[in-house]
């Protein structure tokens, strides 16, 4: 008998692990996602996402419809940012067919895409607040998002799934007075960003809940292929609008906000969130410049045959949506229907790293991390 008998084998004290299903019917999985969470008490030891509850055979559908008819399906992938998805598909198709669209179309596309980015980020910010228990910012965000949806309704009659940006142009020109209305909105919206900051961003409890939580280091983010605000939140200055400018993004002057770790470690939930807040400002900036420069005259349709038949070949083109790097890989066999269409989903890659970054945190943090990644299940499941 000695001192040894008093030492405890601490590894022998094992708590019972519990498997908890978060979703598919859960208030904060942002759609129909099932996270199978293995917990030890409230500490999460493993997360397995199960996806596919919203699978609608997007890619197979695309093989059976003509190129123009793909656009409504693209809308329904990332239904929060339909304009940006349309934009990405149009850019890919134009590259495949070698079409040059008119100056005015470029400006229109940038304006609606940035407006939709604001709308999408507002939803992300609001629901993220909701995930950590702040109810009111959500409704403030929706109040302002509503104005953008009103603008889009004026523009194309739809509030969610626009089918507005077409191959070779857009469906309609701006209606009379639309530009002034967008100006009006921007003037209204810019001071509101400060309101979100006052209400949520710099709230002590909010910072406690999000800074340092779910840190996604830059190398891990890159190795998982994470893109968009999530990647920038980790401090990587990567934005396709700047790094691989498509359309006319090289004409505008704007910054790429990145996570700085102002409240904690770089790459925490708070950084990802704050990148989105700052991107609101940048989008406003871009929209303003585009509105100032937009040519008054010009056609919004390129001269295209009734049935699009791209030449044989393939193209991979990517654009920056609110969720990140959206890629389209299209193979054409010269027929009016795509031979194969593959969509590279930014939300999917974002979700794929959840086990990596949310392991070891509590259940409440998993919800917060999931919210900070801003996933849209429509795009993940396709």
């Amino acid at each position, binding site marked *: 008998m000695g001192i040894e008998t008093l030492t405890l084998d601490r590894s022998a004290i094992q708590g019972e692990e519990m498997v908890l299903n978060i979703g598919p019917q859960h208030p904060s999985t942002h759609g129909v996602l099932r996270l199978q969470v293995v917990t030890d008490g409230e500490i999460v030891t493993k997360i397995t996402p199960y996806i596919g509850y919203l699978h609608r055979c997007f890619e197979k559908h695309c093989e059976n419809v003509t190129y123009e008819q793909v656009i409504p399906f693209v809308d329904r992938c990332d239904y929060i940012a339909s304009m940006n998805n349309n934009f990405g598909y149009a850019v890919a198709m134009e590259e495949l067919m070698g079409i040059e669209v008119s100056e005015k179309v470029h400006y229109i596309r940038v304006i609606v895409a940035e407006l939709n980015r604001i709308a999408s980020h507002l939803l992300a910010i609001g629901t993220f607040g909701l995930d950590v228990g702040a109810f009111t910012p959500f409704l403030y965000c929706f109040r302002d998002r509503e104005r953008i949806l009103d603008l889009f309704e004026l523009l194309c009659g739809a509030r969610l799934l626009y089918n507005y940006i077409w191959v070779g142009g857009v469906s309609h020109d701006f209606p009379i007075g639309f530009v002034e209305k967008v100006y009006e909105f921007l003037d209204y919206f810019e001071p509101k960003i400060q309101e979100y900051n006052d209400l*949520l961003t710099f709230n002590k409890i909010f910072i406690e*809940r999000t800074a340092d939580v779910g840190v996604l280091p830059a190398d891990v983010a890159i190795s998982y292929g994470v893109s968009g605000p999530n990647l920038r939140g980790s401090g990587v200055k990567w934005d396709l609008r700047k790094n691989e400018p498509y359309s006319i993004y090289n004409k505008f002057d704007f910054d790429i906000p990145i996570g700085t770790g102002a409240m904690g470690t770089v790459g925490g939930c708070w950084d990802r969130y704050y990148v989105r807040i700052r991107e609101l400002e940048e989008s406003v900036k871009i929209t303003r410049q585009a509105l100032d420069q937009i040519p008054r005259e010009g056609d919004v349709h390129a001269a295209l045959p009734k049935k699009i038949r791209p030449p044989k070949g393939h193209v991979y083109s990517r654009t920056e949506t609110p969720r990140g790097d959206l890629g389209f890989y299209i193979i054409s066999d010269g027929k009016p229907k795509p031979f194969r269409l593959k969509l590279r989903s930014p939300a999917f890659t974002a979700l794929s790293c959840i086990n990596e970054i949310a392991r070891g945190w509590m259940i*409440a943090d998993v919800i917060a991390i999931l919210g900070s990644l801003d996933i849209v299940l429509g795009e993940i499941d396709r």
Partner: protein
Amino acid sequence: MDLIDFIIICIKVVLVFAATMLAVMGMIYAERRISAFIQNRLGPNRVGPKGLFQPLADGLKFLMKEDIIPTAVNKPLYLLAPAMLLIPALMTFAVIPFGSSLTLFGRQISLQVANINIGVLYILALTSVGVYGIVLAGWSSNSKYPLLGGLRSSAQLISYELSMGLAIVAIVLMTGSLRLNDIVSSQQGHLFSWYVFKQPLAFLIFLIAVYAETNRLPFDLAEAEQELVGGYHTEYSSMKFAMFFMAEYANMITAAAFTVTLFFGGWDIPFVDEAAMGNWGALLSGIAFILKTAFFLFLYIWVRWTFPRFRYDQLMNLGWKVMLPLALLNIFITGGILTIIS
């Protein structure tokens, strides 16, 4: 105790009970309207004038809903739990004085159901018993989210009860009595005799602890909708579900009234001698009490719709590592000063 006294007590009990239930309905309406106002919405405005009958409609809806008892639950405890939560919540108000005394037909009637000499402890005892409803609801539901919610809330209630009790100790030291009437009467006179000015730290600790005790944001971890779906009442439906909410609101009302009694002079109107004004004084004091309580209830709503929620471990850290030492320190300081003075 003669028959008339007995009747008077019965009337008081019924009155206080009815007033609490009415206040619960009022709170539900106020919560929905004020939250709507805070959030740029309209809120319920269709049922009755300005939507005033909305709580009645809600209640009716709850009554009409199918009462589902899941097969896997532990039935006796599952049925018992809502009652175990609601009964202490409604019992607590009995010791709170809500006005100075009334003189009717030569009889002095104090506006309080039971003037017992351990009123403070009575309230603490009942709040600690309220945990059972939540724990048993969580366990008997035989489901994971309610269990987590039940565990969280019981740990939370036990932790914060401590700081709450210690904050009250400072008041009790100053009053030298556990009787709520004595606490109120020692705060009579001018405005600064209210304990909120004499014991600001105790007030802050008490206020925070009370939010945790009543499971309200930013401490509503037990029912954290975004994490635990509904927490301990996930598996409940119909009127049993409504009972959890009634208990929550009843608790809030009692807690607000208790805060007012301890720190804001109870029914006292500063610079006014209520006793000298007879029955009018009693009436005025009652109104003052209601207004003060209403302010704290408003504060509940205001806070709920403004702040995010704490995480479980942060909540525990705050309770044990910040509030408890502060409350102890406060007792030491109060005790020291009282010793020096006397």
